[in-house]
């Protein structure tokens, strides 16, 4: 490890290259969830929907300066590029350097703020102290009002997590794997309990803080944008049902704002890890994000979407179409009478268009032409709808027929080589990890979380 270590005083550009590269596997780059007006003297504000400042070559949003504080890590997580026994260049920032980068990038409108994660230097608490000092300087000495997301390290002292929570907008603790067994096997220095304890701490402190805020308007805010987590999929042999059930429990019981899914990427050779000849499972990741959207905004439950008998999604279909095809007895739906909740379950109708339909039909019957103008994806929705008792064309409510129509590939599973092209085409249609998508879908659905 010492061999690869970059000398103290190495050029800032070299450190930035190493520590951004080391952070790139982290999914979330969203800057949403906080609305904060500028204070008229410092630098910065926050926009509730978040702002995307750029998109990297992989099409992911760049919203925050996403870096590790250090990649000098004592842990041996098998899947992680920064594990202690990997021979890679190592570097650490100083608080001054990170403040300078954040302030200069922010002034030029490159970023919304800072996303600071880290490898474990000495021990979790020591590392979190360094992160605290960075964030404290940014807020207090530099007067920075922009967005700050801090990744908490499992095992750090509760006191340091609490102090950081009063400075950060969002905190997250990686769940790493959907099953406790996978975690034990692939991240030997971490355990489920070690991860859930600080998650619970942040949740409880947030609730207490909201109560204080209701009483005293100027009570300090604790993690106002809430907490999120992420898990790697496709590395530990878990089913989609296991993944969605875990996500649902996190939303229900831990009050998480977002759960992110990250297709496993092979960066280390290790017998404990699967080989992925077809590349990372991007299409599966995409389906999980779509299903996550159904949990959060469409009133679906994990056990409606999947079952012990069918624990995985049919990867050809989006999860909503999957559900609809297994519940054809509930269709067709009359647009002018169906309740909002049922409109939401029609393939091709989203939250915005369902809301528009409910509003518009008070002033007159809605027809297919109007639906189109409202943004309903008619080529999908028309197979499930009636307008004033009439379908757009004769309906055929048969599973096989509709599956061919709704499969975004035109009814065939994309061969491995084509998966990516296909992924590119449809990525935009579904809910993803981007603030941009939150702008499109609106924020109201999130209030229930």
């Amino acid at each position, binding site marked *: 490890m010492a061999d690869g270590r970059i000398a103290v005083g190495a050029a800032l550009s070299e450190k930035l290259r190493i520590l951004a590269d080391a952070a790139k596997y982290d999914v979330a780059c969203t800057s949403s969830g906080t609305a904060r007006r*500028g204070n008229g003297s410092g630098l*910065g504000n926050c926009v509730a929907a978040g702002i995307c400042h*750029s998109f990297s070559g992989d099409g992911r949003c760049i919203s925050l*300066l996403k870096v590790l504080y250090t990649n000098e890590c004592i842990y041996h997580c098998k899947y992680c590029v920064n594990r202690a026994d990997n021979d890679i260049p190592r570097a650490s920032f100083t608080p001054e350097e990170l403040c300078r980068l954040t302030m200069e990038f922010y002034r030029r*409108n490159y970023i919304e703020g800072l996303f600071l994660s880290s490898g474990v230097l000495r021990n979790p608490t020591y590392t979190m102290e360094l992160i605290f000092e960075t964030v404290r300087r940014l807020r207090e000495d530099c007067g920075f009002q922009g967005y700050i997301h801090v990744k908490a390290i499992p095992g750090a002292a509760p006191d340091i997590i609490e102090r950081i929570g009063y400075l950060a907008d969002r905190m997250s603790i990686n769940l790493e794997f959907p099953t406790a067994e996978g975690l034990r096997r692939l991240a030997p220095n971490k355990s489920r309990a070690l991860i859930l304890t600080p998650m619970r701490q942040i949740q409880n402190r947030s609730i207490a803080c909201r109560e204080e805020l209701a009483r005293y308007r100027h009570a300090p805010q604790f993690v106002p944008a809430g907490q999120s987590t992420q898990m790697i999929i496709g590395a530990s042999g878990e089913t989609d049902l296991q993944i969605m059930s875990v996500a649902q429990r996190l939303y229900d019981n831990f009050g998480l704002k977002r759960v992110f899914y990250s297709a496993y990427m092979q960066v280390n050779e290790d017998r404990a890890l699967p080989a992925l000849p077809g*590349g990372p499972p991007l299409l599966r990741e995409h389906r999980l994000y779509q299903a996550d959207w159904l949990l959060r905004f469409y009133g679906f439950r994990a056990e409606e979407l999947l079952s012990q008998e069918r624990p995985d999604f049919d990867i050809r279909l989006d999860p909503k179409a999957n559900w609809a095809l297994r519940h054809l007895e509930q269709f067709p739906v009359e647009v002018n009478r169906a309740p909002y909740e049922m409109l939401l379950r029609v393939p091709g109708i989203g939250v915005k268009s369902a809301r528009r339909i409910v509003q518009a039909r008070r002033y007159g019957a809605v027809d297919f032409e109007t639906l189109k103008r409202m943004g309903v994806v008619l080529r999908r929705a028309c197979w499930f709808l009636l307008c004033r008792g009439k379908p757009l064309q004769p309906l055929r409510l048969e599973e096989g027929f509709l599956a061919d129509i709704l499969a975004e590939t035109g009814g065939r599973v994309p061969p491995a080589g084509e998966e990516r092209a296909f992924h590119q085409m449809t990525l*935009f249609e579904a809910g993803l990890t981007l603030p941009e998508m939150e*702008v499109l879908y609106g924020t109201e659905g999130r209030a229930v979380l």
Partner: protein
Amino acid sequence: MGQKAVLCCEESQEGIFTAVYDGWAGRYGHENVRLQVREEEDRELFSSYINVRTDAGKARKVSDTVRRRMGGRAYLDIARAALSWEADKGTAIYHTIVRGLSMADGFRVMQVLTDPYVCRVSALARAVAREADHLMGFARFSQLPGGVLYARIRPRNRVLPAIAPHFQDRLPGENWVIHDEGREEAAVHPAGGSWFLTDMEAGRGPDADRAGDAEREIEELWRGFCRSIALQERENPRLQAQMLPKRFRKYMTEF
């Protein structure tokens, strides 16, 4: 059915609102009224063309009425639609206001999406808001000698009035200029003060190439970051182009 009336007005909100006032006062019959916000080559036969002289007082009356009878939300949508680059915005706004004022509860006018004009105003407003959102993220300042932050943009819609308040809130202590080169106007913000719009010819703005070595160093750090953060295994230029259309990139540091 009466003769068609084409009201030719300036394309600003003030111009359109004046035309709304004149169109109303002219008693042409609402179904006959069309607003033309730009010169058109072919004139329709059997239509009378009326030149509207922008009048701040008339426009004020219309905007007060819209706010009072249709509410702040509808007003915001209409004001945004007026920033659109689309030529039919005037007509859509005219008929949306007519619709709103004909309703018992005008506050609900923007929900009447079965009305094609209301639907159009709503679509135009969304397009303007979307481009403004884009530029809140994609605009890039570079620091000129003397410390002024200068950004160049070339949006389809006239987004400066929509984005300047955001940057004023965000960068209150900075002197900054955002220059819409296509429209040859700029939003200027003096440190600690309030932003204002001013004419600025393309190519006559501050010379961004004069930025010094310190500025080049920061830009290079940013470009390096953008390269490092991308996952090669997931390279996807089509998705990138979908999320960040190429027309914005000309003015962005990292491209």
